[in-house]
């Protein structure tokens, strides 16, 4: 029962949900004519960055066999993505997207602080602990 032993990665799942919402909001900003920013490079940028955020958070939430270093790198890149998307959203004056990114940062913090550790080293450790018990 490894997965149960690892616990639920609430932060990662929340981040995944926020990423999906952010992608939808970015798509609306990109293609909704008359909003003052539609079809601009700025909106295509946030569309791309939120898509990457979705992919990254998917990996984080679903791929439990990540090497530790890769998990750390992914987590760090997601932070950069969140910050960059947040800045872009601020400069685009897309309040909803900015708010979503803000929640995403909270989710990222939850993941880092409270989620069960991920990465193959920790997974092995958990398995050993499980066997000992």
């Amino acid at each position, binding site marked *: 029962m490894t997965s149960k032993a690892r616990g639920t990665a609430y932060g990662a799942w929340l981040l995944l949900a926020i990423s999906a919402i952010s992608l939808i909001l970015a798509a609306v900003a990109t293609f909704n004519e008359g909003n003052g920013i539609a079809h601009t*490079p700025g909106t295509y940028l946030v569309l791309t960055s939120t898509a990457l955020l979705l992919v990254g958070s998917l990996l984080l939430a679903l791929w439990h066999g990540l090497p530790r270093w890769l998990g750390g790198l992914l987590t760090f890149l997601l932070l950069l993505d969140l910050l960059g998307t947040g800045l872009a959203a601020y400069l*685009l004056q897309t309040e909803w997207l900015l708010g979503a990114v803000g929640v995403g940062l909270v989710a990222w913090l939850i993941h880092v602080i409270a989620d069960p550790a991920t990465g193959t080293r920790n997974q092995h450790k958990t398995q050993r602990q499980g066997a000992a018990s």
Partner: protein
Amino acid sequence: MTRQDVITLFSSLLLAGAIGYAQAQEAPSTDEEGGQPQGITETQDDESEQDASDDEAQADQDADDSEESSVTPTGPGGRVETGPAGDAPDGGEPSPPRTGPDAWMESPDSWATFNGDLRAQKYTPADQITPENVGELEPAWEYHTGDVADGSDEIPMSVWSATPLFVNDTLYLGTPFYRIIALDPGSGEEKWTFAPEAPLEALTQPNMKGRGVAYWEADEPRAGEACEKRVYVGTMDAKLYGVDADTGEPCADFGDGGMVDVNQWNTVNDKWPLSLFQPPTVYNDTLFLGWAGKDWEDAVAPPGTVFALDARTGERKWTFHALPEEVVERTGTANVWASMSLDPESGLLYIPISSPSPNYYGGERTEELPLATSVTALDTETGEVVWSRQLVHHDIWDYDTVAPPTLVDIEKDGETVPALVQPSKQGFLFVLNRETGEPVYPIEEREVPASDAEGEQAAPTQPFVDVPEPVIPDEWPGISKLADIVGLGECSRKAEGLRYEGRFTPPSVEGTLAYPPTTGGSQWGGGAVDPESGVFVINSNSVVQIYRLIPRDEYEQREQSGETGGYYAQGDTAYGFQLETFLNWAGMPCWKPPYGTLAAYDLTTGERLWNEPFGQVQKHGFYMPESWGSVTIGAPVITRSGLIFIGASMDSRVRAIDLESGEVLWKHLVDAPAVSMPAVYTYQGKQYVTFAVGGNSILLPKVSDQVIAFALPD
């Protein structure tokens, strides 16, 4: 790097992008109309403004056209031709002169002229919308003309700066494709349209431009006759059309079946017509026409003329010439491409006259040309100069006088002074007695730097105004640290190699830092005034450009090698010219923000009441901080209730601003920068604020055909 630095970087990129885009357009500069090479804004209108007629040639033509015409010297270097010179159109006797204001124009509910009224006050007594309720303002209706081009196909990009007119219970629009559209002012429903046969080609300007239409109606209309009320629109190929205001049908008695070919009076330069973008100024039964051309390239261009036409027949009453006859083989323009103002009580017409050609080198026109770059008062009946004040001597900066002077009576020192306020690209506000041309606030002739260019003779002094405080600082803003860092010191290195000795530093071979440059300062929109309080409001630009003279041999070599961007030949003179906006390699402005402000002045004291960054820079969709402001094209309107309505900014927003404090009280997103001034009118008891949203490539590569009216909810 701090967050503010990051924002600054983005902002700079935005503005830079806009500037770069404008440069890439090769449009001329900044004046909107003109079209000169511009770097940012405004559009050039510089170009435009070419004046038209050559005195000599015109006199010849007049002689051919009519034995009754005569040429009379008038004022400081001007000349007037009187009599029915030119091809007298068919159609009845000229109307007898009338005096006093037209009743239809004076209605407090109307917006009957380009500037709201002839005095160019841009003021309405409407007070239904107040600072307290303006936040409730919402779109009442929206209309799309269909006349828009982004330049991606055969039709050049459109630049639409037309103020809608509300008169005759109808809203009239003129489009950049020269169509006239009549709308129901309460619903936006189309009543009729008129489309002239005009080529949609860039004959004198890089863009398709339009500032709308003019309206006239007979003082004593003939019952049952058509065309007792008319709407006029001009074209880039110099055709002026007059149509019935109720039906849109051409007026048979106006010119040749409803059209007057103004280019028939362009006898000097057959390359470019006398483009008619600015609708005529209408006073009683006379149309006063200026024109736009192309003055940034050649030395010899059509010389500045203003025509007075009979509103009913199109027959020419008189022609005013801004340039002496003896110079027109070496220079031209000094034309009137912006709107004019007129005192309906005195019958004086006030015309903002542009710089002579070529714009940036004056070695072939070293004699005094006292009417060039001036504000000049003409007698509407005769066209003779009543007074004139030159605002730039020997203009080699393209400091066209581009805005109509605002006429207002000022209470000063216990007396009522009949005044006018003349904004300028130099950033000065010249406040003059409109009856005499004498300064209300001091104008001081100060020594300015000499030119080191071969053959050039820069004027030793130029007029300066300290009160009211200029709309931009005396000194250029200085290097932006962020732009310098990003450019690895490029901005500083560039600045070190440039000549800068304050305002009026002449163009030079090594390169001159020009502040303000051809973009101004103030641009063609001019300001607005509350005649009751004497508060004057005006938007401005803070842009730095580099003026560089290029010896003729080197210029031709560059030309042969295919270098074209930002280069202007300056005709057969000793130098060509390069205009460049002061940017780093990344396209960031090398100077500090703000890039545009909106300011209010108390004309009774000359004191500046407030000066706030206005609008937001937008590029690639990103908005920069409000403290950076925006380069602006357009003009404000003031209401009696203490509101300012204005579009003008890069961020495609229209705003309502508190006249007292400068605080933004309401803003609304529109389809593109609203570079026209709004029309504020009252129809069936309801106050409307209507914007024509056209866009301008100088601000943003975003165009539109949107007309949108705002009102309070029922």
